[in-house]
């Protein structure tokens, strides 16, 4: 076969299966959600890079490395570390502990028993959620759908590929359009796990949040020790303020 015809043939064979499958963004997002929701426990590692415009006065800034372990229905632990700061978030099904290891400070507050309710209560009462918690809820699809009115499948491409396009993970590339931000999500073709997320906010300068998932383990060894916090020597317990308390203090 002539090289030209061979090229055409290769192009056609690489295109045909995708065309035949014709996945929609909805289907791919549901597939990813089902994969995560179906795992009783999982671990992941990621890097999260947030543009400064999205971090007003917040100390845990810039590029952060995150490791998290989830045990359904109610246990969640995440560690995030940047050059300047590090935090631990540990939910054991009864309480949430936050530990600032650089300053050796921690706080413990009672929390609901499920991850979904924990995240909702944190968001509502304390004005934040643990890093990448949206991937740990029981139905990530609903979480994404709540924020995106349009989901479109853009095609297939490799994430994490090196020079000459070698290595990396073949991914389905999705576009999600939302009211406050648009996002692009790359989901592994073989394992249906999220590999990369880039959210661009609709505001001056178009600041972004960029997440790269480095590793997933859906059959991890998880022990109760993963969700137990033992204060290090000299650690001081401090209060965790609600947004209502901070708002009241602001008026003084």
């Amino acid at each position, binding site marked *: 076969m002539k090289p030209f015809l061979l090229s055409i043939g290769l192009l056609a064979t690489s295109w045909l299966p995708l065309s035949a499958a014709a996945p929609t963004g909805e289907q791919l997002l549901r597939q990813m959600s089902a994969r995560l929701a179906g795992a009783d426990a999982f671990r992941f590692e990621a890097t999260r890079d947030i543009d400064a415009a999205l*971090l007003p006065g917040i100390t845990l800034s810039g590029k952060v490395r995150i490791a998290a372990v989830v045990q359904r229905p109610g246990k969640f632990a995440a560690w995030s570390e940047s050059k300047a700061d590090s935090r631990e978030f540990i939910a054991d099904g009864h309480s949430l502990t936050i530990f600032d290891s650089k300053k050796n400070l921690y706080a413990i507050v009672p929390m609901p028993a499920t991850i979904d309710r924990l995240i909702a209560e944190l968001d509502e009462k304390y004005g934040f959620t643990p890093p990448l918690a949206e991937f740990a809820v029981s139905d990530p699809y609903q979480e994404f759908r709540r924020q995106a009115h349009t989901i479109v499948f853009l095609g297939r491409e490799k994430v994490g590929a090196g020079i000459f396009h070698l290595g990396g993970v073949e991914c389905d590339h999705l576009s999600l359009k939302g009211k406050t931000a648009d996002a692009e999500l790359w989901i592994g073709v073989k394992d249906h796990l999220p590999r990369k997320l880039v959210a661009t906010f609709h505001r001056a300068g178009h600041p972004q949040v960029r997440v790269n998932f480095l590793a997933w383990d859906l059959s991890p060894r998880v022990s109760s020790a993963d969700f137990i916090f033992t204060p290090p020597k000299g650690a001081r317990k401090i209060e965790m303020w609600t947004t209502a308390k901070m708002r009241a203090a602001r008026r003084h």
Partner: protein
Amino acid sequence: MKITRLVTAAILLAASAAQARDYGVSSRSAGRGTVYSDNRGGSAYVGPRGVAAQGANGRSAVATDRGTAVSDRYGAAAVGDNRAVYARGYGTAYTGAAVVTTGTAAAPLPAGYITGIPPNAPTFIISGTTCYFINGIYYHAVFYAGNTVYVPMTF
């Protein structure tokens, strides 16, 4: 509100020299602009890119096409194209100035609270709580929106 008045004064001083004389001030050229002053010690500079004013009491305001800033004995505030900054007590040298941007995803930190403590700040225990004494204000640490911040003690 005093801050509003200062901004208004700065805008007034952006008017023409003739108008300025109507307000009882004298003027002289300075650099690419004009300095206006009155006999009570107040002065204002009007330049091609904005205006700045300082009262006899040391309070000042500046307005440019990029934003507005004011200061008084309680602190300083600035409003730019897309964000506002407020610092209380000791200027903006510390990381403690709370920054508020519009439409922020995270809960904004309130004005006047700080996110860092200078390493040499004196430390005290008050009612069992560790406090840091900075420029006349006692601060203590709390977690807020997942971060460590330092809030003034209330007695």
